[in-house]
């Protein structure tokens, strides 16, 4: 493992500090075809006590890496449920809570506010809009893009492609960041400037009948116009109670295909 030092505090906030960590298991260099250059640096904040969440520097993930949610940018989170994309998206839009309400358009009625609070969205800023019907969904997203801080929208499976394209244009015009999370399938090509797709997922803390879920390690494939046609592999650590941490500079894959 190559772990030189590890600090762990008990309780809700699981905090780790690792030096020169070499990925193992499914994210090892062998599995990734030697495209991984492990040069990991500790990214957790050892001063965080898990209590003062509001003042904690929760934006580490987005400021330090490629997953930057800029004003007017459309990000697509594409993948099956269970890979941590909802929490990733909530963490992204939570960065804009200071600019106004964070609106989450919930298609299934399953979105948990608790997860949004954990991801850094203040409770008083979070507004959840339940819209299932595709035309109504498109109207709602178009309206909220005009005046809120940021929008996280699950995309119904049968929404018309033209509606999504119009919303992407509206997001660019109104400078409101938009995160699209298709409930099923993919987004039409050319919509999102940044497309995030999960590659592998590793949960830690649970064994054969004992323990509890503590944190997960997620390998993401990031591509799109923002990445200039390159596809980058990014590893994200999520301990649930803290902000997500990105392991910077872990892996840069060669371009697989030109994209836009």
């Amino acid at each position: 493992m190559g772990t030189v030092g590890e600090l762990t505090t008990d309780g809700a906030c699981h905090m780790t500090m690792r030096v020169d960590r070499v990925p193992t298991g499914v994210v090892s260099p062998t599995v990734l075809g030697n495209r991984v250059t492990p040069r990991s640096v500790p990214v957790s904040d050892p001063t965080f006590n898990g209590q003062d969440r509001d003042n904690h520097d929760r934006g580490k993930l987005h400021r330090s890496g490629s997953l930057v949610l800029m004003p007017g940018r459309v990000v697509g989170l594409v993948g099956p449920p269970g890979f941590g994309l909802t929490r990733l998206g909530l963490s992204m839009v939570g960065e804009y809570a200071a600019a106004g309400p964070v609106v989450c358009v919930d298609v299934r009625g399953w979105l948990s506010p608790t997860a949004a609070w954990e991801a850094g969205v203040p409770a008083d800023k979070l507004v959840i809009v339940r819209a299932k019907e595709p035309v109504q969904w498109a109207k709602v997203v178009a309206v909220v893009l005009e005046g809120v801080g940021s929008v996280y929208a699950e995309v119904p499976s049968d929404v018309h492609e033209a509606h999504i394209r119009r919303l992407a244009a509206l997001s660019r015009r109104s400078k409101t960041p938009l995160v699209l999370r298709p409930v099923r399938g993919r987004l039409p090509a050319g919509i999102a400037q940044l497309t995030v797709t999960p590659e592998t997922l590793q949960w830690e803390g649970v064994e054969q009948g004992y323990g509890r879920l503590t944190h997960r390690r997620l390998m993401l494939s990031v591509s799109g116009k923002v990445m200039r046609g390159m596809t980058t592999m990014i590893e994200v650590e999520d301990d649930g109670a803290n902000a997500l941490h990105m392991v910077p500079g872990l892996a840069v894959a060669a371009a697989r295909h030109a994209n836009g």
Partner: protein
Amino acid sequence: MRRPGTPTDKPVQAVDIGNRVIAVNDEAATEGVTIGMRRREAEAMCPVIETIVVDQGHDAARFEPVVKAIESVVPRVEIVRPGLVLVPITGAVRYFGGEEAVVERVNKELAAVALPGQRLGLAAGPFAAQRAAEMTTAQSPYLIVDDDAVFLRTMDVSAVGSEDLAATFRWLGIGTLGDLAALPRAVVASRFGDVGLQAHRHAHGEDRAPQARDIPADLTVEERCSPPLINLEQVAFLARALANRLMSNPAMVGVTPFCVIVEAEAADGMLRTRTWRSRDPLDEVTLADRIRWQLQAWLEGERRSGGDGIDGGLVRLSITPVDLSGDGRQLALHEDAQSTAEAQRVLMQTQAIVGDDRVLQAAPQGGRDPVERVIWYRWGDEQPEGERDINAPWPGAIPSPTPSLVPPDPYPLEVEWDVGRPVRVRLGTRWVEVVSWAGPWRKTGRWWLHEEPCDRYQIVTSAGAFLCEVRDGVTWMTGVYD
């Protein structure tokens, strides 16, 4: 309050430093001069009008004897502005044996120092008391309100204080505060926002509940002066510095004071204390103004009564915030009133598209399961009280991280078990292997509410992790760790 020497038979207007008319007498009103008009406009309408520029410091000095007179009967007088004070009289009522006795005693003291025309209103809340005082006449200088809500019921809706809001209410057919109070608060709040909510509270005879009068000592800002300050300009600079220091205190982040105590110590050892209250949250400028007015009042007041101002000069000045509230929170860096209004507009429009009950906010509360820990309410409504105490220990609660997706009702999940161990989970049409799991964690329901016991599991598969409950051999999914 009337400024001495003001003519009583000529039109007179009082203007603020922005040259807006803030008060007119009956003669000026007859000529068509109204409050809010620009000074030039009023002078064009009534060329013989006499104009008085407001000097709050001077007015505070003139008002100081009135405050002293009231304080000789009831302590803890709170000045809202020169000419208006709020006096909590609960203790005095017990001491003097009744509300009427207190009011008559105050009225008698005022008659000795104030010019004719003082008005006293007594009610449960400041809003109703002020309205009661406005309704008094020279013949009956005080009015005691038994029931605030009943008293306010027949009052015109313009009493809410905002002409625009009152005009909108009238357009909607709401003519009195009673009509407004009859509307559901949630409806008013969702349509008119915070302003409407405040108006609705006032219509019900409710005021913003002030915090208990415990003075947080660590928030007090104090300055000792050596040599003592002897002129008003020096004191004004000190007031601004203290206001800045108080508002920059890290403990004041997110809150603003609605009430402050100004305390000054003279070189001769005499300690003077006065409380100032504001209906709106005090900021640095308004706080510094009030400190300056008070010091000017002490200074000029002493001179007027034959003294030489504050004897020996000012050696110590301290400011203590008393009533702190988050209501007057300063806007964030990226936040402005316009964007807030825009956000409210789009959310109201969203409500119109999907319905009120589909634009939701949530607040945390206590509970063991993810679905229990959230209390939902419609956007624009007041946040309801949680049923369960969030600070209670809640043993057996599902630990963090919480599932990102929580179905409102448990969702049936097909799980293959092998001697009590989950082996495979069916997701759609395919089976996925269970990689690891934790549990069972027994949850015993409240049998008296017919809650059935269940076993809870965290199941990790190659396609994600789930929170499950097993009841009577049937597995239900209660959360997805997405």
